[in-house]
């Protein structure tokens, strides 16, 4: 029986090799673009309602957090800036990544695990095709593209909802909030947020695709094993999001 430490090292090593495999295929352009586009289209339509609801709720949370400090320190002028920092870079992308991991990450792990469990990957190999080009790389790339595509509208919705909450509950002027964003928030913050979201997408894509593919070479291919792969992918995604967030915060600007 392997210990937890052995499993963690084996899992990390496997994930690293998977990341190198995807990187090689993306750099050389040898992945299935049509499949990638199909996954992006399907994923965007699938995740849009979850992200819309999530953005509204996260915007409310961001607005209420700002409102607490606004009331305590009478900081009307900087509310917009603080809300934008939270929505665009600090809180928004992190919570959005958790929502993305919950919706698309689990779905990606489940689909990949089912492909492995039903011997579809064996069939791809039998046809002389490369599963890494047809399955692995398109899934990881699609999750990064979806994350990037969702970030601008989600960040905007979060900010607008935060302003509306502050206006309705705290009487904070929407005009002053908007002025504060224009005056104090630099474009770099948006780029940092975009970079974080793409890294979160990459983390979730790699973790969940790898978890699903872990069934391929094992003899455990039952329904319960598919659930276990989804569960494993979720756990690694959560750890990955937190680690990437911490590194990005430590290396990022002060805003």
């Amino acid at each position, binding site marked *: 029986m392997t210990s937890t430490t052995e499993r963690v090292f084996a899992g990390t090593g496997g994930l690293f090799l998977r990341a190198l495999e995807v990187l090689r295929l993306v750099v050389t352009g040898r992945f299935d673009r049509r499949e990638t586009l199909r996954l992006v289209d399907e994923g965007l339509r699938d995740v849009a309602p*979850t992200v819309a609801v999530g953005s509204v709720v996260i915007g409310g*949370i961001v607005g209420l957090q700002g409102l607490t400090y606004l009331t305590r320190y009478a900081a009307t002028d900087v509310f917009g800036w603080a809300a934008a920092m939270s929505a665009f870079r600090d809180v928004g992308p992190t919570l959005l990544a958790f929502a993305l991991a919950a919706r698309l990450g*689990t779905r990606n792990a489940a689909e990949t695990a089912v492909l492995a469990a039903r011997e579809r990957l064996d069939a791809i190999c039998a046809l002389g095709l490369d599963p890494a080009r047809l399955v692995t790389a398109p899934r990881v790339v699609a999750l990064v593209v979806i994350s990037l595509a969702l970030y601008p509208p989600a960040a905007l919705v979060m900010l607008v909802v935060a302003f509306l909450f502050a206006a309705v509950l705290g009487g904070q002027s929407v005009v002053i909030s908007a002025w504060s964003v224009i005056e104090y928030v630099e474009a770099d913050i948006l780029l940092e947020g975009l970079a974080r979201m793409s890294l979160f997408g990459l983390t979730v894509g790699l973790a969940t695709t790898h978890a699903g593919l872990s069934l391929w070479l094992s003899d455990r291919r039952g329904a319960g094993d598919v659930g276990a792969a989804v569960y494993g992918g979720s756990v690694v995604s*959560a750890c990955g999001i937190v680690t990437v*967030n911490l590194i*990005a915060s430590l290396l*990022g600007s002060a805003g």
Partner: protein
Amino acid sequence: MRPGILPLVWRRLDEVVVGSLLLVLVAVSGIGAAMADQAGRQAMRLLGDQSFVGVEYPVLGLQEFCPLIVALVLALRVGAGFTAELATLRSDDTFDALLVAGAHPWRTRIAPMVLALPPGTVALAMLALVGWEAAGVLVMLGRSGINPFTFLHPEVVTAPLLLLLVGKCLVFGGCVAVGAVGAAMLPARPAELGVTVTRGVVLGTLLTLGANLAFDVGWYLA
């Protein structure tokens, strides 16, 4: 003789708390460290003073991030696990077989999960609070040279804030349980186990986020 429900709840509680402790500590400490670092650097840049970060940081953890991050991690980890377990029982007809055999799967399988999640979330959030504060202390010491004794402000941990944390955790734990059980009990084909797990995690996550917003609005208005 029917077995008592308490040992079953206790076993689930062990699964929720002990099984998730490491992941919860990593998640809460990681997010806490990032928050403390950003707050410290922004305070220094804008005000040239970091003294209020130590006062506000534990409040932010108590009021918002410890319960929320713990619940989101539980939705991803325990929610997915419980949904997968129940959905597997349903898909291979074990659940119906247990019903027919009079083994009371609602009492022996589902009730322990639902009863264990809320107190488990409270216990994890309390432990996570220690990780949150320790992460803040370490980051502020390492990045800004702030003395840990200057940064620590235990006096801001008041009874109403602790009550809010407990209340949030109890409700969030319930949300994760409702998401898992609700998704698993919906009709699904065996091949759709992955979809069912996804549904359980998403439902738990969205319910938690919504409940958090409702709590925040209520707390602000109060």
